[in-house]
Structure formats: C-alpha cells, structure tokens
C-alpha cells in the first residue's frame, strides 16, 4: 500500500473510531475508589481513558499498516530473488541440455506407450 493510502486509511479509521465512540459510549461503571480512606485524587474520568484509547488506536493502526507494507515489500523482494534464481537457472547449460533430452525422449516414450500391450483388467 502506498504511504499516502496508508495515511488516509488511518484517518478514516480515526473517524470511524470517533463515530463509534460517540454512538456507543461505554457505560460508566461504579468504581470502588471510595475503598480508600486516603484518596487524594479525583476519580478517573472515562473521557481521559477514551483519549488514551484513541491515541493508542491511531498509533496501532498506523504501525500495523506500516508493518503490512514492510512484510509485503519483504515478500516481493524474496519473490524477485527466487525469480532471478529461476531465470539464471533456465539460462544455464545444464538446464538447456536437460530440456533437450526431455524433448528428444518424448517421441520415444510416446511410441513405447503405444506399442506396450494393454494390461488385462483385474476382473479378467
């Protein structure tokens, strides 16, 4: 995937996430912060957690796409290497001689298969 596509994809994911979070805001659950007799801080705001989750999602999607790109490039690179090796092999004298032998032997094999008597069926 092109980098620009990856960026726009991440943007659309961000948008979708925002819509999803607006549509279905997670139900606030009662936390047990009252358990502490020394509680000195305000209870955690769900909004702050959403901000953290949103940032995580953006980074997560971006790096996932970047990694997929990298893996695709790696696969393409490996494919290029394999293709080059195959082409080099096909240019080699051994390969050409081998192909020639197989080609020359084909009529011989064909004639032999015609001349060979048919095997009797097991039921006979």
């Amino acid at each position, binding site marked *: 995937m092109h980098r620009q596509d990856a960026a726009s994809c991440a943007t659309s994911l961000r948008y979708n996430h925002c819509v999803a979070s607006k549509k279905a805001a997670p139900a606030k659950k009662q936390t047990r912060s009252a358990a502490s007799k020394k509680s000195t*801080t305000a209870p955690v705001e769900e909004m702050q957690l959403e901000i953290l989750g949103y940032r995580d*999602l953006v980074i997560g999607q971006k790096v996932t796409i970047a990694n997929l790109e990298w893996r695709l490039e790696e696969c393409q690179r490996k494919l290029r290497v394999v293709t080059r090796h195959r082409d080099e092999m096909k240019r080699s004298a051994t390969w050409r001689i081998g192909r020639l032998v197989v080609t020359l032997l084909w009529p011989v094999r064909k004639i032999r298969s015609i001349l060979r008597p048919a095997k009797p069926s097991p039921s006979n």
Partner: protein
Amino acid sequence: MTARISLVVPVYNTRPEFLRECLDSVLDQTCGDWELCIVDDASTNPETLRVLDRYARKDSRIHVKRRTINGGIGAATNDGVSMASAPFIGFLDHDDILDRRCVRKVLIELDKDDETDVLYTDERLLQPDGTFVPAKKPDWSPERLRSQNYICHFAVYRASLLREIGGLTEDLEGSQDYDLVLRATERARRVAHIPEILYTWRTHVGSFSNSQGTRDVAFESGRRAVENQCARLGIDAMVEHGDVLGIYRVRRQLTSRPRVSIVIPTKGTESFVDGRRTVLVVNCIRSILEKSTYTDLEFVVVADDDTPESVLDELRAIDHEALTILGYDRDFNFSDKCNRGVLASSGEVVMLLNDDIEVIDSEWCETMLTLALQERVGAVGCLLFVEGLRVQHAGHVYRAGFPTHEGMGFPIGHEGPTRNILTQREVTGVTGAALMVRRDAFMEVGGLSNVFPNNFNDVDFCLKLRHAGYTNMYTPYARMYHFESITRGKSVDVTEHNEILGRWWQELHSDAYSRSAHRFSAEPTSLVSPLKGS
C-alpha cells in the same frame, strides 16, 4: 583510480606472518577503491621492515612511511591520518584481518547517506587456539558507548571530521581509540552500523591487552575518556568503574526532584516470600518506604474488587500521606488497570510496578530518574532478580517474533552475553513489571493498549515510545526482586501474540540493540597492542 577509503595501519615489530596476513587481506578486497597508509613506528625487527618493503613494491596503492623516532600508537596513527588522501579513513591493526567484502560493503553503506560521518561493523575475535568468537554489535547507542567501548573494529571516520577533532590524543594511554570514537561520534551527523562481521581481531600472547598491569592503566584511561566526554557535553556526572573492569558507570546528578507516582495493580495475593506468608502488595510498598532515599513518592494501588478486605486494611494501615487505593470492578486487564492508575496519579513521572516486586537498592529511584528525565528518553527499566538468585530481566530482546528477557536465568553477578546485564544502555523495550516513564510520554503514546490485557502490553508500549521518537533505557544500578508467576500463570495468549506480531512484525524480528551470538571482549583496545610498548 582515486581511493575512496584510506586504511591506516600503524606497525611496530609485527610478526611477519601476521603482517603478511593483514596486508594480504587488504590486497584481496573485492573492491579496489582503497589506499593503504602504513606507518612504521621505528621498528627494530628487520623481518618486519623487509615485509613492508616487499608489499610497497607490489602495489602502488600501498604507501609506507618510516618514523625515525618511536612515538607510540597515537603518534603513528596520526601520521597515517596525515598521509591519507581519501574522504574516509578506516583503522586497521597490524595483526588483524579484513574480510574481503569489507571495503565494498563499507562504501555501499556510505553511499546510502551523505551525512554518515562514522561507521562501524561487527567483528570476530580470533583466539590463540584458532577459534572465533563473534561480536555482533547493537546499532548506534551513545549511552552504551559511555558505559563500554562496544565499537572497537572496524571503525571508519570521515577524514575531515577526524582532522577537525585533531586525530588521536597521545595521552590516555591504552584508550586512545575509545577517546577518539567518543570525540568523533559526539560531532558526527550520523553514525551507521553494518551488522555483518567484516573484521577479524587477533588476540595472541604477545598482545598488549593480555598484560594485567597495562590493562589496568588502559581501563583507567577509558574512565578518564568518558569523564572528558561528560565534561564536553555538559553532563553533570561522576564516572566510576563499573562492577567489572571495562564497564564504566556514569553517575548523573539529579537536577530536579519531581514527584514519582508508583502505580501498582493488585488483587491482594498472599504468598510465601523468604519462607514467610506475605501480602505481596504490602511487602512491595513497605520495601520501597523502608529502603528508598527518594522521598517524594506517591502510591496508587489499583485493587480488584475481590481483593480481601484484610489486605485493604493492611494497605490503609501503611503510614504514608500519598497512598490512594483505586477500586477496579472489570475483568482483569493489566493495561487498563495501569492506565486508570496513572490517570488517578499526580506525579510528573510514573513508575509502573507489579505488586510482587521488592526493591533492593536504596537509590533505585534516583538512578532511574536520572535517565527518565533526559530529553527524548521513554521507558526506563531496571535489573530484576527472581527468587533463587537468578536474573529475570535485564532489558527486552526481540528475536524471531518472540519477545524475551535479556540475561534471563543467569546467576546474580554474572555479566551475561556482551556484558548486557551489567551495562547501562539503550534497549528496544523493558518489562512493565518495573517501568519508569515521564507522564507526558505516557500520555503521548496512549498509555498501555487495552488490546493486550495479559501479555505484551509492555512490549507494545515500549515500541510505541520508540515509534514516537523516544529511546528506552536499561540500568543495572537499580535492582529489585520480582517474585514472578506467584501472582499469575505463565501462559501466553495466542491472540495477543498474533496482535503484537500484526502491529510490530518488523521490530520483533530485528532488534536493533540486541543481536544474537554477540560477545564483546573485556579487552581495552587493540590499537594499543604491541605498539604501546614502543
């Protein structure tokens, strides 16, 4: 043909067979864009001189300069630098061997970026018994370089930079090359690393570095070289010898003392520690309060709903003004618990701590803070031991898609592979069991990801920090016990592993700071070898 790289070789009474092998390795290069600048430091061995004459006649790219007075390694190398005409200079020891691909690979790497001023490759040590020990090096790690001269050979410098910094200093006996690499890298625009073994460093009985007395002098010079760098860079620190010679400890001064919020997720597990039944979270907090010299600490305990009331009572009984207990009534999710704990805290710096931790060092907090407060430093990890006196964690290692702990299983006091356990250094990640990070960095990357409720949340968090441009650090000077797996099983969720691979495939397959089969020698330098006696 114009040379693109000058290889400088200072020579003094080298054994002819070693010298021939060294020079042949240069002549055998697959790329011919080099020149060889040999400086004979007034050798008295006629055989050495004969070999030099023969090779000088053999190839026009070999230049030999004879010094009339023996000046030592620094002076001889500087003469070589002044002879060099190429834009890059590489240093080759008179008894070492270059891989035949070395020059070609170096030039290809230099061509990739015009800003590369210093470049180094991996190397291997040739032992007197003929065996090889590979030394695979991490990518550019300035903090590690202050702790350990990991660069050694084969190092290539831009000639203009080398002349600008004045070449090698002729004092700092035995550590001139360490000093040179410190001075050059602090001015370099880019430092590159070729992760391939392209140099063979010969260790033999005649080597300078095998003599105990001179080694001690060299290590002391190394300490002074690091001290000098700290002074140049304005790092307010004392430099000491580390736990073993060849490792240096940069003890930075704490410039500010911000509040540190320690976030401890727990479910109030009780277990046997040192044969005594202990509430782990209480033991953890008490060990911190009893041992720590740092005072501005805040505790936020994120306790599951099923935490026994007796444990909560014990927590309430702890005499500390800033201790908050935050209830958690959802399914277990380590990341979510940590995030909630951080949001409920107020400190500028956050310490994520498992409840099964017990601190050992009194200055653990100051040690970690000096690193965490540096610019663009993300997560800071420490040295963890498991019960049974073995190392559990000395930074993360990411290999073949599986995150593991560096140094795991080594006995306490062991230096580990490449001395990784004892070296303060850059790492790709550290464990979330004891992780310090600045609040702004934590918030910037979205805290720990809830996608990883059990495993890999720390791996993901550290990689997110790296992705955002932060460097993660490990220090062996803050030590703690980690009674791991007392609190939860060791099972790894396949879906979490797939998720982490999906996000960080590349990073989990190529760890920039920890490569397999690497072992750095404790020897000070090879540039100081027999020449130093001259």
